[in-house]
């Protein structure tokens, strides 16, 4: 089974790290589309179907939370993971209130981080199928 991921982050290096380390996770095939802004993400979402969205919080222009709000207001219930290095409790709470599924803080080594991200995405997608 292939999980289609839309990854939104204004930092190209972070997109690349996540792409590479997720590929290394192996077992499942993640098909990752990386975009550099929330606006671009909305455009892609109109054209394609994704199993999960992974988004940074702080980005120039539309933020991760604004992207989430836009999606939920338009009835898009695709699983949403806020994946950020800046934020803390306030952002975490706001994200859950707006309908985010998971909040992951970018902390620690990239391998562990991406391994957690992969596991989370699999669980979310499995849950969605069962539902």
């Amino acid at each position, binding site marked *: 089974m292939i999980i289609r991921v839309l990854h939104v982050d204004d930092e190209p*290096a972070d997109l690349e*790290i996540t792409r590479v380390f997720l590929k290394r996770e192996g077992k499942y095939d993640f098909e990752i589309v990386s975009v550099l802004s929330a606006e671009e993400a909305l455009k892609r979402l109109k054209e394609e179907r994704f199993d999960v969205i992974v988004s940074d919080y702080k980005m120039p222009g539309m933020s991760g939370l604004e992207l989430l709000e836009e999606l939920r207001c338009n009835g898009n219930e695709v699983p949403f993971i806020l994946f950020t*290095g*800046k934020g803390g409790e306030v952002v975490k709470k706001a994200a859950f209130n707006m309908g985010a599924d998971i909040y992951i803080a970018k902390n620690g080594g990239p*391998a562990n981080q991406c391994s957690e991200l992969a596991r989370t995405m699999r669980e979310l997608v499995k849950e969605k199928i069962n539902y």
Partner: protein
Amino acid sequence: MNEVSLEMKKPHILVVEDDAEMRETLSDILVENGYEVETAGEGKEALTLAGKEKFAICLTDLKLPGISGIKVLEEIKRINPEAYAIIITAFASKETAIEALKAGAYSYIEKPVNMEELLHIIKRASASYQLQEEKKRAEEELRKNEEKLKNVFASVTDGITVTDLNANIIDCNQATVDMSGFSSREEILGRSAFEFIAPQDRQRAKENTMKTLKQCFLKDLEYICLTKDGYEFPVLMSPSVLRDAHGNPTAFVAVTKDITERKLAEGELEKYLKELERANRDMEDFTSTVSHDLKAPLRTIQAFSMLIMEDYSDSLDETGRDYLNMVKEAVERMNMLIEDLLTLSRVGRKFSEVETVDLNELLEEIKSDLSARIEERGGEVVEVGKLPTVSTQRVWLKELFTNLIDNGLKFNKTNKPRVEVSGEEADKNYLFRVKDNGIGIEEKYQANIFNLFERLHAQSEYEGTGAGLAICKKIVEELGGAMRVESKTGEGSTFFFTMPRN
């Protein structure tokens, strides 16, 4: 007082009698009866004596050569109006008696003198004189006291206001006048004391008046008062009740202190404190933000050097791989520095709840956390005596002891590194000691070791960022204590720190 009562025992009597024999007899009898007596044979001599000394009683013959007895008694009364004059007369008649009494005589006695009668009259006169003198003295004392009180009343800088039981002002001092902005005391008298209290405090003041009546005295009630022109100023007022001899309340007395300046000073202080707190918070926010911002690119460097090392190391030669290793190590060090900065910014900000901490248990936990280092070095961590149980923020106390113990093991070249931990309860503080047998600190460096990122050794010799002791010191200070070190090169170091007991 002694002098007075002595004088009271022996009233001074002047005997004026031209008949020498009679003069002697009178004098002897009076002296025998405890009086102090002076004698004169004629008027002029008598007046000279009266001018020099103060006599309580003057016993004078009416018929004298030269100046008459009436004249003598008139003069003596002029000199000392309180003196009692008793006339001796051989010419007893209503006229002479009336004349003598008119001239101010106290009594008269006929010749031949009945000594018993005379003594009786003198005794009465003497008693009256003493009573009169005593009253005069008491009045003088009262006047002096009143004067003193009046001076105090006028000169105290606190306002003193006396009101009747309906709180209408019946007296006040100059300080009250100055405070209220009126030009004289008379302008204030008769007004209700509540007029001087700002409307928002008036109801409370009325309630407190009732309370004062019940409790007799209230201390330091804080009110906003009004000046004549309606300007508000803060005061502390202490009202009390005056009572009559039967204990019934008769008046209120209030002492009022203008605390405008104190309030201003408090306001200034609060402002500075707030500014300081804000500056501190800004500083901590800054450290926290910067640390987070620094961590993001560092993670990128870490991730890509890891990818290169794992996926592209075949394309590099030995030197290239060495360089990459150096990048990796630098990144790890940078990570530690940032972590330490974050810890430092959290001390004092993210203090957890105060809890009861048994330091013996805490030490066991630290030993277990550090077991790898202890085993690797073949060292030991020992409690000397029983450690106290304290109320504190556990997280930070653990960080503190862990840092000090870890340092003692790390900066140590002996075969058997040993760290001793002890603690005792002093008067107001706990006094802790962490002693190691490590390399010690050269005296010239001792002053700097608590500075942030202060390192005395090469990274290759001893790993670490140099933030540990700065963090320790900040924790101790946040907990309200102080920290210092004693050390000798080659003989180890002892870190002392205190912690308040409350």
